[in-house]
């Protein structure tokens, strides 16, 4: 009698553990889910509308991942440290508009490298202000950065200007047009992969090194995992906070210049309202919103998925109006999936 029951229990435990093992593997490797989703979307869209696989479309998507990707890396670093930043689009808009204005009016001959450097410094400075505020006010970083977002954008639109800049500086224009390589399609149309995608590649590598190969990376994950314990271990919360927000601001500043270079105009109203889809991308990439986790690879997969949602739905006849609803479902779905804590 006891043998039979224990047998049943054992076999049930066995079946359960097989299922558990699969779910646990996915919970431990959140980016895998995102990768599967990407593959699924690609296959479905590609079979409904073969135009999807055209090189020009793929190039288009690669181009539009640049700004998003830069933003997302910044959000990832802040999120890993247990914070949340929604002011990065305001920082990017501010930096891009002010720098475009300055360069056009004062130094029209300035080459692109110093422009990028100034943008990075300016962004980092604004970001550091976020970090100082978050660590001094001891308030949730979401609330603080909502405040700074409005201050920065309001300041930009009130005191600096609301007019479009159509004639952007030569060097930025040239940088946006500079081609990494061309592709000639069968019907003779040429599509171009611009050089500025390399900026994202560099940012990805630097962020990966930062998170995985430096003491600061250790500190970021430690503070995000458990701030109290990290502090007792001797990590300075203040330093980490200021660093992560400054880093996010730095990337946002560069992203702003990329935005101008690729669109060939500087519009101070641009970029506003795209914060949520960036956060969605990072969360889809498996970073837990409570901090202490998240990877560069996952974040990039999340960015690709969001770009797919934005770019290809039209190709299969889903109206673009449904984008927001689908993004919302993705956030909730990913949040629900990744809120399952891996059990030992």
């Amino acid at each position, binding site marked *: 009698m006891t043998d039979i029951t224990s047998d049943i229990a054992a076999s049930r435990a066995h079946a359960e553990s097989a299922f558990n093992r699969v779910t646990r593997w996915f919970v431990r490797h959140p980016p895998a889910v995102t990768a599967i989703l990407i593959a699924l979307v690609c296959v479905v869209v590609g079979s409904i509308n073969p135009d999807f696989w055209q090189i020009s479309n793929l190039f288009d998507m690669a181009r539009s991942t640049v700004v998003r990707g830069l933003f997302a890396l910044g959000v990832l670093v802040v999120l890993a440290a247990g914070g*949340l930043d929604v002011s990065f689009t305001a920082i990017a808009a501010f930096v891009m508009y002010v720098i475009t204005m300055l360069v056009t009016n004062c130094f029209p001959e300035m080459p692109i490298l110093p422009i990028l450097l100034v943008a990075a410094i300016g962004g980092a400075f604004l970001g550091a202000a976020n970090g100082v*505020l978050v660590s*001094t*006010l*001891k*308030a*949730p970083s*979401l*609330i*603080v950065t*909502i*405040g*700074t*977002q*409005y*201050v*920065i*954008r*309001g*300041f930009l*639109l*009130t005191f600096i200007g*609301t007019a479009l800049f159509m004639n952007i500086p030569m060097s930025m224009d040239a940088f946006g047009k500079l081609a990494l390589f061309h592709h000639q399609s069968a019907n003779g149309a040429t599509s171009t992969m611009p050089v500025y995608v390399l900026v994202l590649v560099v940012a990805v590598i630097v962020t990966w090194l930062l998170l995985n190969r430096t003491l600061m990376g250790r500190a970021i994950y430690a503070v995000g995992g458990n701030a109290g314990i990290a502090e007792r271990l001797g990590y300075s919360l203040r330093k980490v906070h200021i660093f992560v927000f400054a880093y996010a601001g730095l990337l946002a500043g560069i992203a702003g210049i990329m935005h101008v270079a690729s669109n060939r105009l500087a519009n101070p109203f641009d970029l506003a*309202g795209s914060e*949520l889809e960036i*956060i*969605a991308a990072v*969360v889809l990439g498996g970073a837990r*919103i*409570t901090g202490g986790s998240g990877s560069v690879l996952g974040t990039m997969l999340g960015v690709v998925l969001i770009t797919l949602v934005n770019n290809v739905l039209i190709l299969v006849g889903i*109206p673009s*109006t*449904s*984008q*927001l*609803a*689908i*993004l*919302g*479902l*993705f*956030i*909730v779905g990913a*949040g*629900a999936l990744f*809120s*399952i804590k891996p059990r030992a």
Partner: protein
Amino acid sequence: MFVRWSDRQLNFLVFANALVIAVAVIFAGDTFLSLYNFQSMSAQVPELALLALGVMLAMIAGNGGIDLSGIALANLSGIASYLLMRDWVSVDDQPLTFVWIFAGIALLIGLAGGMINGALVAFVGLTPIIATLGTQLFFTGIAVVITNGSAVSLGYIEPLDNFGNTPVFGVPMCFALFIAIAVLLGIVLRYTPFGLKLYLMGSNAKAARYAGIPQRHMLFLTYTVCGILASIAGIIIAARTSSVKWDYGTSYVLIAILIVVMAGVRPEGGYGRVICVVLSATALQMLSSLFNFLDISNFFRDCAWGLLLLIFLATSRFDLRALLPSRR
């Protein structure tokens, strides 16, 4: 654990209200004090203050609580309710029935939206930020889909318009309704077991669990109430503007949080008073009307709201209130 009726925060907010009125009289003259101006201001307070009350409830509950989906749900409930009703009940034949059914369906949508938030936070275990961020996009997205992205005009529906714009005994009806809701919510928070448990849960989640408070149940209820408050705001918006659109009040998320922070609600949970939220909403509304009088641009207004939010976060941290006059 209950604070005295008049605490520092309350005194401060009364003082802030008086200060704004005084400044307004100096800069904008007596027109600011006219009955008409006060009526139009008090008709504008409810929608924001109801959303702020929702944010306050979510914050009191602790657990990193916040409700970012308020204005999205408010817009959705107005839009969906009207679109459902439009072909079903004739406005011209029975305007009053139309309005009641419109309000009823909007409330049901708010209830459903709040329950979705509540279920996500309480039972699925999502962080409130991510849950309400996701539903914010989701609700807005649905509103965009069913309206195709354009505003929907309600036309002139007399009873609804009266509710939004016509004062009875000098008080706009939507403001009276709002005060009634605020009083009810204040009583629930102060004198009922629900309120006691909510504050306890926000002050110390662990202790609350050992005290046997059903936390998931409480969280679910709290976010459901947030949803209902949002849908009432949606009805008031529809009544006041005679139209519904998906992108109404894009900066309301910020302003609702600003009202709540200014009212001294603790973002980490456990403290918050309805009366303070109401007073902080009226102070902000008067400030906003003053900006109107002075012809200050909307962009600067956003900048000012952001600055105020940071300043009030700072004062709650460093307790500058001690420097202000209080009746101690």
